[in-house]
Each structure stands twice: as C-alpha cells, then as structure tokens.
C-alpha cells in the first residue's frame, strides 16, 4: 500500500528541470518577495509577472492550465486577507450593520484585497512550479547549500520521508475501523456522534504514539550508523554557466518588473 499523493514532482528534461535547484529556490523566493513589494493596484506589473509564469510553465513543458488548476488549492487561504476590505479608510462602497458594529467596505480596502489575492495567487503558482520541476531531495540539498539552518532542513527532510509512512499508517487504521464498522441491514446502528468522536480521538492518539515510538527507532538506527548529532551530506550539485545565466536573467526581469510598477 502506497500513498503518492504528495509527490508533486513531474518528471521532465526541460531547461527548467535541468536548472540547478539552488537557482530555482533563490529565483522562486525572489519572485515571491517581488510580489510582496509590488504596490497595490500595479496591475501591469502583476500581469507581466503572470506572463512570466506562463512562460516558465511553457518552458517546463507543462500544459497551459497546469499551474492555474493546481493553484486553486491554496486560494482559500488568501481569504484571510478579506479583512483588508473593511480595515482601510477610503470612499465607502457598502456598509453592513451587524448588531452594534458597522462594517464599511472602502474602495482602497477592496483594491488592497484584490492586490493581496493576486500576490498570493502568483506566489503559489511559482511554488507549485518549483516543486513540480524539482525532485524533493534536490530541494532539500538546495536549502542546505543555501545555509538554511540545519535543524530546519533536517525536519523538512524527515517530514518528507515519513509523511508517506504516516499516511500509510493512518490508512491502515482507517481501513481496520472500516472493516469492523458493520451496520444492521435494517439501517441504524453506527453509534452516537460522541462515541464516534471518541473512536476517532483514540485513533489520532494511536497515530501519535506510533509516530513517537517510530521516531525512537529511527534515532536508534541513526546512532547505529555513527550519528553524533550533526547531519552530514555530500554535495552533488555544481553551478554551471547555464545556471548563472538563467538565474541572472530571472533576477534582472524581477528588478525590471519592480521598476515598471513604479513608473
């Protein structure tokens, strides 16, 4: 039984796939930073950033809609920014009375919300592109070489490795519950909501305990192989002229984007 739901990597041999993972990580982070720095309502710059994304998407050999369809997953989180609509002073558009409170939507607030939404949407697409064109171990190497704190990188790396094991474990638990969840043919049964919640709580506890015990076994396995508290790895990547060139082009485009937004 295997769960490969989380593997976001799509194999390919495109120029983007071949790019050094460090360059990809740096460019992706800079792209997100650039989105954050774009002023509210800089629609031309947002559009250019989107076109840039579409260009990279095509370069990576994915369908036109690949990024867009996957990016919808993350959009609900951007709704957290909805409070911006009511938080900024400006020309009032609508007003609602909720008990003693009055909510006033302003034009400036709406503009900020729309910009926030666009920024996060663009940024999510870049992150999707990064994980779709880079093997996860390469990403971890890139983070390591970019001097991200070792402990963080180790946590990410273990998380990735054991996400699959844990999901398999959870699926086995669910399956075992399913297999014993018979119901009378006449309907009914199934227990009260409280009882079912209690069962689910026990399962979550089981999962936690099993993971905890597994972590001790994994640590023992690490110790058995000379681990003394510092993770070491080899460096399998080297930056070539091609990587520098593409990286520089990407950074240049981002600077240009910032200038255009402020013209």
């Amino acid at each position: 039984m295997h769960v490969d739901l989380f593997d976001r990597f799509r194999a390919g041999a495109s120029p983007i796939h071949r790019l050094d993972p460090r360059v990809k990580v740096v460019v992706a982070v800079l792209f997100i930073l650039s989105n954050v720095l774009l002023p509210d309502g800089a629609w031309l710059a947002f559009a250019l950033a989107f076109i840039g994304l579409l260009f990279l998407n095509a370069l990576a050999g994915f369908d036109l809609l690949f990024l867009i369809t996957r990016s919808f997953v993350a959009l609900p989180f951007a709704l957290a920014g909805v409070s911006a609509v009511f938080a900024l002073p400006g020309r009032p558009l609508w007003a609602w009375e909720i008990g003693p409170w009055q909510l006033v939507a302003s034009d400036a607030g709406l503009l900020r919300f729309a910009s926030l939404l666009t920024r996060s949407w663009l940024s999510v697409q870049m992150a999707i592109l990064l994980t779709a064109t880079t093997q996860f171990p390469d990403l971890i190497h890139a983070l390591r070489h970019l001097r991200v704190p070792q402990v963080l990188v180790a946590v990410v790396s273990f998380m990735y490795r054991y996400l699959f094991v844990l999901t398999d474990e959870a699926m086995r638990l669910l399956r075992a519950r399913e297999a014993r969840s018979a119901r009378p043919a006449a309907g009914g049964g199934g227990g009260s909501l409280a009882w079912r919640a209690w069962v689910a709580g026990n399962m979550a506890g089981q999962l936690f305990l099993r993971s905890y015990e597994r972590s001790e076994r994994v640590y023992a396995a690490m110790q058995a192989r000379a681990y003394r508290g510092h993770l070491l790895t080899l460096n399998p990547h080297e930056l070539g002229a091609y990587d520098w060139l593409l990286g520089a082009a990407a950074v240049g485009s981002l600077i240009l984007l910032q200038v255009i937004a402020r013209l």
Partner: protein
Amino acid sequence: MSPIVHRETHDGSLEVSSRELAQPAAPSKDGRPALQVRQLDFSYPDGHTALRNVSLQVQRGEKIALVGPNGAGKSTLMLHLNGILRGEGEIFVGELPVVEANLPAVRARVGLVFQNPDDQLFSPTVFEDVAFGPLHLGLPEEEVRQRVANALEQVNMRAYGERLSHHLSLGEKKRIAIATVLSMEPEILVLDEPSSGLDPRARRGLIELLDQLPLTILAATHDMPMVRDLFHRMVIMDGGAIIADGPTEALLSDAALLEAHGLEAP
C-alpha cells in the same frame, strides 16, 4: 570457550541437556572472539526485565541464529551490541569494551540492521541512506562514494542509488537496509528478523546474500527453515535469558526443547 548448553529457564527450573557443544570457529589472529557478552542484565525504565544474566561468545566468521518467542529479549540484546541500550554487565567487541568513549568505534564494527526498513531508511534517496554511515564516520567524499557503490553492489542493487526509499518494495528496502550497514564495512552484522514479510523469492535471495557475505553474522529470527539452511549455531532465548546454545542441527532435533520455548523444527 565453548558456549554453555544448559541454563536456568525463566521460570526457575533447570534445563539439563547432554547435547554436544558447538565447535567454536577458529579464533582470530589476536586470539579474541569477535564479540563477548558477559553477564548482561537489563530492565526497561518501566521496570520490565528484558535481559537476565546473558552471556554469549561469538567467534570471527560464525553465523549464528538467535531464536525464541516474541518478547524473549532478542531485539533488546541486539540493541546492546553496539551500545544503543546500556545494561549492567560487560560487552566486548574484539578488544574494545562497549563504553561511552568507544561508541563511535564500536558502531563502525557492529552493523545493526533493524527489523522494519522504514525505520532504517530515513533519507529521501537510497544513495543518501547508504552514504549516511560512512559520512558520519568522517570519511572523505571519494571513499564515501566508493563505499556506497560497493555496498549497493554487494546487495545487487547497483542501479538504485537515485531511487526514493518510499517507492521501493519491502524486499528492495530490506536489501538497501543491509547496504546502509555494509557501507560502514563492519566486522559483525547484526540483523533483526531479516526475512520477515518477504515473498519466497525475495527471501531466497536474501538467504543467498547472507550466505555469501564474508562477515560474522548474528540474526534474530522466527524463520526456522532459514535457521536450518544458513546458520550453523543457534542460540535459544526465552524470558530474557539464554536457554540453549549449540549446533543448529542438534538443537533442532530436540523437539521437547523447541516446544517448551514456542519453537518448531522446520
């Protein structure tokens, strides 16, 4: 010295046996056994006593099966052999006592392969997992790569370096788990349930692999046919104590002994 054949069982009765003692394998040049355990006792923090007065001598090149019912203390004993658990008593790996200061050296000599390869393979790729041991031994990069290649070669998994561990089958994982330890070039290979969960072909392949490895091997197992085919010496544990220790053939023909400790002749 030769292993002792009769021991006190965990319920206190004395089990007497007149079996032949195992012929010890030729001692090494320095005359020391590869591994010596002397009067080892261990209790888990919850008070459960897992090992009682365990003594064991392993000569270089011996292949020994450690058998006994679940909860007999086999895994606990194995975790002591490279100092992951520390009980009361003495353990020597070659001339090295297993004490805090020697742990790095001891762990380079005693390679422990855990029962569940998902616990053993914790890196994203196979290469990184096999390289983990040699890297942490502080070897230079060239040598690490060489050792990874050799270890993968030894388990016939040459082409698997860049594979992701979680995409492998159980049989492949077990082989890689052995490679992660072989890359440290240990003198003693200690395996916990190496054949459990494998399909017949993978199991057969694993037995051949273990047979060919020119190492001292100590394996805890319930796989009695494998014990018969692969191991010349057998140690029976029950209730945290060693009950019997002798040539496999002799112990396997003692039906009463096997039955008393939840075992069956193959």
